[in-house]
């Protein structure tokens, strides 16, 4: 019974949207759950072929998982069911898990750099980590500064994006962004069997479902996810279901009030980017509209991903951590399949 409901932590490289959606559906159909943190995870599932930085991140996460734990790879969409079965077999294998538990001690090792610290300084650095330094916050008080890297493996976060935030409490006062996908930002969309329009629509719906999950509306998020699955299956009822969901979300008074004036963005990067302007709720409704447009065959323009990555630290400064998550989840389609339009535009410009 203990392995009847496993929690799966997914390592998703950029460009693997369809594979990750496949994992979500497979996990949900088995009654399993996607894990948010390594603490609650039983299985680490690596999709596609992650690059060296992502592999290092996956190793760190596997280290942070308590036993019993398993690690499986799913290089293609077709390999996912076998990978999940393999995971179940690994978790149920008592002898192997006991051997793993013996090797894997429970004492965690922090990132220590003892060379430039004398032994007298060790009192000020319990566990090898120095105490939090101080910094002045917006009211002039001295606050402890914490450094928190968001990504590259984080649920409801664009894959491949790492945002290292400096926090005063739960307010982000500074950030540094980088892209750890092995290819350039936006490239790497693997050849899929679905036409590009449906995949882009699915990425908009996925972003909308992510924002709904982060905003704490799991029922609405589940509904949008089922529309997303229907879109990928090329179900003809998709557009009517999409418009029904859009109506329901627009009518939700509490959701609109809760997200009012949250994660507000002015016009980004100077280019026309209507899907991303406004607050979180406006962006949510605009994502659903963009998905409907993509499904109808109209391309929706998103800002260039490399420019967006550079502008991200300025966009998140001064916002609360939850708001940053909502903001970046709303911007996720710019890093998804739609981003490959920018790289193909570049190649045609170079060729022509």
């Amino acid at each position, binding site marked *: *019974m*203990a392995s*009847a409901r*496993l929690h799966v932590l997914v390592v998703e490289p950029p460009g693997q949207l369809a594979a990750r959606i496949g994992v979500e559906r497979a996990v949900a159909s088995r009654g399993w759950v996607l894990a948010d943190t390594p*603490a609650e995870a039983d299985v680490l599932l690596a999709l596609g072929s992650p690059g060296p930085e992502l592999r290092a991140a996956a190793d760190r996460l596997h280290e942070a998982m308590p036993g019993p734990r398993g690690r499986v790879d799913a290089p293609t969409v077709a390999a996912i069911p076998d990978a999940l079965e393999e995971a179940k077999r690994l978790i149920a294998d008592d002898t192997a898990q006991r051997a793993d538990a013996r090797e894997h001690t429970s004492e965690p090792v922090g990132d220590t750099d003892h060379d430039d610290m004398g032994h007298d300084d060790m009192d000020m650095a319990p566990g090898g*980590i120095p105490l939090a330094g101080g910094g002045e916050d917006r009211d002039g008080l001295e606050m402890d500064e914490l450094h928190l890297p968001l990504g590259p493996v984080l649920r409801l976060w664009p894959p491949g994006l790492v945002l290292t935030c400096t926090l005063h409490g*739960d307010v982000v006062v500074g950030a540094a962004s980088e892209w750890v996908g092995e290819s350039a930002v936006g490239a790497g969309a693997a050849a899929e069997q679905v036409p590009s329009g449906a995949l882009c629509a699915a990425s908009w719906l996925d972003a909308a479902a992510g924002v709904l999950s982060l905003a*704490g509306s799991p029922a609405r998020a589940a509904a949008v996810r089922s529309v997303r699955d229907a879109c990928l299956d090329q179900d003809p009822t998709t557009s009517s279901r999409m418009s029904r969901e859009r109506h329901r979300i627009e009518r*939700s008074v509490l959701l609109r*009030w809760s997200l009012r004036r949250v994660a507000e963005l002015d016009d980004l990067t100077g280019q026309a980017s209507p899907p991303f302007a406004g607050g979180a709720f406006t962006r949510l409704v605009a994502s659903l509209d963009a998905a409907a447009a993509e499904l109808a065959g109209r391309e929706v323009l998103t800002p260039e991903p490399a420019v967006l990555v550079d502008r991200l630290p300025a966009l998140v400064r001064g916002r609360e951590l939850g708001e940053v998550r909502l903001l970046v989840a709303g911007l996720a389609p710019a890093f998804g399949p739609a981003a490959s339009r920018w790289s193909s535009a570049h190649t045609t410009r170079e060729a022509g």
Partner: protein
Amino acid sequence: MSQAGALSPAWTVAVAAGLLLLAVATAGARAAVVARRDGRPALAGAADPLREAARLLRQRPRRTVAADLLLWRIASSALLPVALCMAALVPIGARTLVPDGLGVVWFNALDVSLWAFFWLLGWGANASFGLAGAYRFLALGLAYELPLMFALVAPAVAAGSLDPVAIAAGQGLWYVVWMPLAFLGYCVGVLGFTLWGPLRAPAGQDLATGVLAELSGVDRLLVVGGRYALLVGGAAFAVPLFLGGSDGPWLPGVVWLVVKTAVVAALLVVAGERLPVLRPDKVLETGWVLLLPLVVLQDLVVAVVAVVGRVETS
């Protein structure tokens, strides 16, 4: 004030067993609802809490770097005992396990103690998400605690006693009918101290489950189970305060107590499922500007009615 008859200590076991069974039943009912929503059969979903408990019991404990282990483990183990204490304050029939006549005050003390435990839960792991969740809990606590306290005052004023037995006995017309705002304030308080539904931000998805982020194994089971137990404990205490206690035709008092507790718990679970998680700054604003004045107004109405009633009878 006359002291209520005391139940024998053997009833402690029965109360604990009842609380745990109801908590598991609530978890199962909610899991069934979630399973239906995800397209799985409801009965298969109802067994999910048991599967989850089996998985967590098999999981190894986990420590983070430089964690404040003592305080962290104290916090994670404390939720279930607090819920048991809350359930122990609920009178069964006209008798109670705690016959000192101050049940309402003890309940308030217990829900205030949860502030410390939820803060330590976020603090102890020495991790940023947990700390951010703990800060959020303090903000929510400021929002729900005062309305909860004033909501507890209303039935006490109406019955002229702090003893849940006397409050339950003195209800002709159930208090929920003519003090609905106090009931609302009480329910918001229960949602707040169980991190449930609209007040789930300290354990929210946007903080990677916040205060629950670094828990694993038995500690996680104690916290997750403790939240359900607190929900049932809070729902159970609403019964003598607002729903007339163990009164009811034909069936024995215990059965009515369980039925009424289940109804309130179901109401809270449904509220958790239908309402989105509210951001802490919005809750703080609404709690102080809207809910607190309404509950105080309700207390004024109750006080006037009580005084007029006493003037008429004297």
